[in-house]
Each structure stands twice: as C-alpha cells, then as structure tokens.
C-alpha cells in the first residue's frame, strides 16, 4: 500500500540533514528566545514540520473527503458553502421575561438559534424560594422554576421555527419535559421541535460539578431521555457530549478530547444496554468543544476528534449508518482565557478562537463577550461577539474553502499527535472499566487538577504569557467598560411567581404526579412520561428533584485537590 508523501526521497533526506546542520550553525548566533516551545496545553512542538515528520501520512486513510469517513475534513460535503455554522449565543439572566426580551434581540440581530443559560438553582435542582438559592436567583442565568416560566421564556417565539439548545444536566429530563409541554401548548407537534439537551452528566462529576444524584441513577436518567427522544423526538439532539467544561476546569486539549469521547463511549453503551439500535440513536448524539487560545492546537483537536469518533463508532460499535460516524459539534470560545485585566483585549482573543473553530470545521459556535469574566454580558458586548462571527463568515474568506489547513505539514503532525495522546488516555479509561469506573477512581478529576496546577505554575513563572496578566500589565486603571447588573428585584419577583403558580395549580393533580414519579423511580420503568405529567401539573423543579433525591440519594464533592 502506498503510504506517505512520495516527497521523502533519499535526496530530500539528504537536503533536510544539510539544512539541519545549517540551522544548528544559525542558532549559535541567533539562539531561540526560549528553551522549549510548546502549545498552550504544553505539548512540545518542533521548529518546522516537513514530509519527514508526517511520513506515514496517507491521504485517503487519514483525511478522506469532506462528508466522508473518517470526516477529518468536516462532516458536510460542501461545508459552509452549503450550510453556514449555526451562530448560537448562550444567554439567560434574571427572570423569564428579562431573558425573553434578550432572545428576541438576538434573533433580530441575525442569530440562528437559541441557547438557554439557566441560573444556578435550576441547574442544581432547587427552587428560587429555597434557602440554598439565596443570592443566586437570576445571577448566572435565567430562573426557571415551573412550566409557567418556560412558557414566558418562549413567549412569541414559535418552537417550530427555531432550534434551542439547553445547558442543563442533572435536571435535564425536567427541562426537556417543559420544552415539550410548551410546544404542545403552542400546537407544535413533537417531531417538529429541534434542539439540543446538554444532558451530559458524566462531565459534571469530572469537571462542571453540577450534580445532584450519584452517578449510577444519574446515568439511568440519561438513558431514559435517550430512549424517550429516540422514540418521540426524532429531530432532537439527546446528549451534547461536552469537552468545554472539562477544558475550562484545566484539562489539556488531548485530555479534553479523551475524556469527552470516553463519555461518549459510555453513553453509546448505555443506549445499547437499553436495547436501542446504535444507528437509531447515535446520529442524535452531538459534541461540544472548547476553543482555546492556541490556534493550531485547537484546529488539530477538532480534526482529530472527528477522526477518532468515526473510527470508534464504525469499528468498535459496528454502527452501519454514516450518520452515526459523524462527530457534529458545537463550540464555544474559552471563557477561562478571558481576562479581567484590559477587557477589550478579549475581543481579539475571541476572534482568534472563533477563527480556529471555523477552520476546525465546527457546526455551531458561541463567541464569548469581552465582559464575561466580570459579569453576564451587556447587550453591546453580546452584539460585538455575534458580529465577530459574522465578520469571519462574511469577510474573512475562511468559510469559502473546506478545511483550508488540511495538508499543512504542521497541522497534520499536530492532529496525529493529539489523537495519539487522546487514544492513550481512552485506552487507560478502558482498562479502568470505562468512564463511570474511572470517575469512581477519581482518575479524570486528578488528571485535570494536575494539569490546572501545572498551567498556573507556568503562568506564575512566565513560561506562558497572558497579555495584560503576567506581561504588558497596565500601570493605569483599565479602561472602564459597562457591566450588566442583574435587577435586584428578580429574586423577589421570582419568589412571588412560584407562590402564585402553587396557588393556582390543581394541587391534587400535582401531588399524584409526584407520587407516580416516585413509584417509577423506585422501579425500572422509564421516568420521562411521569416527569412530563409532573411538569404539566406545574410541579416545581425542586419538587421533582426532591422526589428523586429521596429515592436515589445525593452526591457530595470528594473535595480532592
């Protein structure tokens, strides 16, 4: 079989050796400004890549064509010419009315789809009037306690015309049920609603830490939604397998790939254990990557991820449908890379990161706003972030050609290198007995904590430079930028709203819905129909979660560092 570029001839090898000698001579006079050059994830990179460094490269095997196995070059045949990536800004704050107004502004501004940020109490399964929610109502996202809030959130937004992504994990089945119930009220049939549920509980234990129940019953809830969606919501993405939070917690690019794909493997196994056919549910699994600051490392990561998933799905899980092989992904620029110092610089960071995601072939993108390290973004900052995507799409030319960096000696070398490192981790996780067992051993958590600490040390010792943080700091106070203040009345308004809903609902129906859910949770049946009934009877998020807490128990942070 023909392997590798034919460029590695004896003549090439001789020439390369000659140039290397010349380089050594040159560097005696002009030494490199650092001892070691590495990516943001601290993967060492060579000065130059040539045919020699990728001599095993095989175009058809390693890249293929866009829209074809192994999808290294992208999942769509003509990529952005045929379908521009979805511009989807994650947003939510205050009450449902506040956020509804922001959504309408974003849709008027040319955004394609919605992405709901829920506030901490909803994410953790508490109501706004719970003692645990003190000070958190509407702060990091929108307060949703009952179906009434969800109705307000999507008021005047027809659910058959937009796609909605919901970042929700432990209470994911509840919020999904609310969305389905809102669609019912709007008269939109189930097969017409399109969107994504994050529903990725494994990465909560690994990185984001928004868990409620222990891992095993949590996986049962994931499998319940997977089964429900596969049968009832054909156009819904059931799990958004997320590397974003893993990376933000401090993982390297290769760890992000490995831990996320290992989570994906666990979800596929969970679906198979439910008796579902892999080709019936795998096409609705999607991914969510972080886009960090090292431009080429990110491009390589996106490409390596698609190739890995395609091979895993075809060879390991024997999926037959090409749609099961495709790693479709959303991406978000790295929140952790934003700096509170000299915040306007964040616009430049986000632009470079967004360009990397596009050149990496993302299918959907959120660009962070420059002020997000200080508070939730202002309208002006969100608009700049959205316009950044539009400038890349319309002005930069990056969307004209499929995978324009494909074939670069360096990008192919780095793609291989990251893939190899990620595969090594996946092998190790397999040895532990899969991701659930690895989490129980604290393996990914420890690896991420180590990487985060290593990175912080590199910042402290200036081995890695963050502009405005450990180099080029301003002596004067930073230019002031406006910061969004959450209306202090949100908490009060929301508490009144819950009281009002509880007063008006049919309490007998709500009570028997909760009792029905409890019985289902104690048994083995799918809990989704019962959760739907709870939601339709205006049970609160916490009432539903408390039933499940009572049956499943709760999970506590091991507190390792």
């Amino acid at each position, binding site marked *: 079989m023909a392997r590798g570029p034919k460029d590695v001839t004896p003549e090439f090898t001789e020439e390369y050796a000659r140039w290397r000698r010349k380089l050594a001579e040159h560097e005696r006079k002009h030494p490199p400004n650092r001892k070691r050059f590495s990516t943001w994830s601290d993967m060492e990179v060579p000065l130059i890549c040539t045919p020699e460094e990728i001599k095993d490269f095989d175009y058809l095997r390693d890249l293929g064509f866009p829209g074809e196995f192994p999808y290294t070059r992208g999942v769509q045949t003509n990529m952005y010419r045929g379908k521009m990536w979805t511009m989807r800004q994650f947003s939510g704050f205050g009450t449902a009315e506040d956020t509804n107004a922001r959504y309408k502004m974003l849709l008027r501004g040319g955004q394609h789809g919605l992405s709901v940020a829920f506030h*901490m109490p909803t994410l953790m399964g*508490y109501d706004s009037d719970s003692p645990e929610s003190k000070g958190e109502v509407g702060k990091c996202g929108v307060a949703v306690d009952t179906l009434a809030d969800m109705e307000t959130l999507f008021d005047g937004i027809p659910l058959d015309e937009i796609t909605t992504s919901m970042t929700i994990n432990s209470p994911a089945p509840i919020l999904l049920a609310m969305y389905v119930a809102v669609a019912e009220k709007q008269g939109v049939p189930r097969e017409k609603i399109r969107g994504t549920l994050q529903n990725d509980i494994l990465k909560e234990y690994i990185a984001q830490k928004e868990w409620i129940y222990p891992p095993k019953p949590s996986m049962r809830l994931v499998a319940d939604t997977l089964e429900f969606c596969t049968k009832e919501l054909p156009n819904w993405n059931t799990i958004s397998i997320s590397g974003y939070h893993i990376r933000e917690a401090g993982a390297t690019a290769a*760890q992000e790939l490995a831990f996320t794909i290992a989570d994906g493997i666990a979800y596929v196994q969970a679906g198979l254990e439910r008796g579902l056919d892999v080709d019936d549910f795998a096409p609705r699994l999607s991914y969510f990557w972080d886009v960090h600051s090292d431009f080429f490392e990110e491009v390589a990561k996106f490409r390596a991820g698609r190739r890995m998933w395609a091979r895993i799905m075809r060879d390991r899980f024997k999926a037959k449908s090409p749609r099961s092989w495709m790693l479709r992904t959303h991406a978000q620029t790295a929140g952790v890379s934003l700096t509170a110092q000299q915040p306007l610089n964040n616009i430049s960071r986000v632009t470079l990161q967004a360009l990397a995601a596009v050149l990496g072939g993302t299918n959907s993108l959120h660009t962070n706003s420059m002020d997000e390290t200080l508070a939730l973004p202002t309208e002006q900052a969100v608009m700049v972030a959205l316009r950044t995507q539009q400038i890349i799409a319309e002005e930069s030319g990056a969307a004209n050609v499929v995978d324009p960096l494909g074939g670069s000696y360096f990008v192919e070398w780095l793609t291989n290198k990251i893939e190899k490192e990620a595969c090594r981790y996946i092998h190790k996780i397999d040895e532990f007995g899969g991701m659930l067992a690895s989490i*129980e051993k604290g393996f990914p958590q420890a690896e991420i904590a180590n990487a985060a600490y290593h990175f912080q040390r590199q910042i402290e010792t200036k081995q890695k430079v963050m502009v405005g943080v450990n180099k080029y700091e301003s002596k004067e106070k930073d230019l002031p930028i406006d910061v969004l203040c959450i209306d202090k009345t949100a908490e009060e308004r929301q508490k009144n709203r819950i009281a009002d809903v509880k007063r008006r609902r049919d309490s007998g129906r709500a009570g028997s819905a909760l009792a029905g859910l409890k019985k289902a949770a104690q048994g083995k049946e799918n809990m989704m129909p019962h959760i739907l009934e709870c939601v339709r009877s205006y049970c609160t998020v916490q009432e539903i979660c408390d039933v499940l807490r009572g049956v499943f128990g709760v999970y506590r942070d091991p507190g390792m560092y």
Partner: protein
Amino acid sequence: MCSEGFSGYIEIRECIEMPQKKTAPRKTSGTKPAKKSGAMVSAPARKVRVLIAKPGLDGHDRGAKVIARALMEAGFEVIYTGLHQTPEMIISAAIEEDVHVVGLSILSGAHNALVPEIIEGIRKSGGDDTLFLVGGIIPDDDIPSLRKLGVHMVFTPGASIESVVAYIRKNVKTRTLS
C-alpha cells in the same frame, strides 16, 4: 502533561449520601473536608491552618483547588471543604478545624448574600482573629462593602499565588499559633 505517575485517588463511593428516614437529604453535613499539609515545614505545631471553602451552588472550583494545593506547597496546613457548602457548614468547619485563615472562593455573583453570614458566624463562635480572604469574580464596586463587613483582602482575577501566600504570612495573627 503526562498521564503517568498520578496519585491520590479518592474513592467516590464514600461520597454518596442516602436519605435517612424522613429527613431531607441535604440537611446533613458535607463530606469530611480533605486535609493535606505540605512536607516542607519541620515544626508542624506552628503551622498556619487555612480553610478553603466554596459556599453556595457555584461549581467553579479550579481556582480554589489550585490555591489549596499552592498553599499546601507553601507550607500551610490546608483544609478544603469541597463544593456546595452552606454558610453553616463553613462556619462549623472553621471552628472545628480551628483555622487561622478562611478563604472563600465565589465566582457566581452570590458573594454579597453569602459572605456576611459566614464572617458573622465564625466571629460569634470565637474566631475573632480569623483572617478572612475572598477570591473570585468580585466586581470592584463590591470590594469596599466586603472590606467593611470584615473581609481582610479580596483577590480578583490575575492575583498571583505568591501574593496570596505573602499576604497570609504577613497578616495572619501569629498569637493564635501555639
């Protein structure tokens, strides 16, 4: 980063709490705080004890964990509460562990609601000379009011580990060390 040579797993099966009969599951106290101390200091009796705590629902613990490890390496004895602690849990951990320094890490915007209760509780329970530090996303405008409430120092993004270590060394009430 290399994946070889990692150590110190905690079996998380210990972290599952089943509800007691009739009591609400989350009323029970949190996991026993993880305690580690640096090997560099030879006189453990004189070690400064630091509690790093994560109040509220905020799950951002990257900074808290990095600081906990760095303080340990700097020779302090560090107790990390883990996530999702109520003010009462933090107050009782501070008292039971008899710490000199309490570092609260908050990135969710809930600082104004959570910090006063914790400081007041610790002071009332005898921790009068505790050094209170807050780290995280704290808007400049909120810093003066936090200082007035008794927070000795607020460390915002960009603060170096070194500056935190130096601040503690300089300001911790050494008379409480025995």
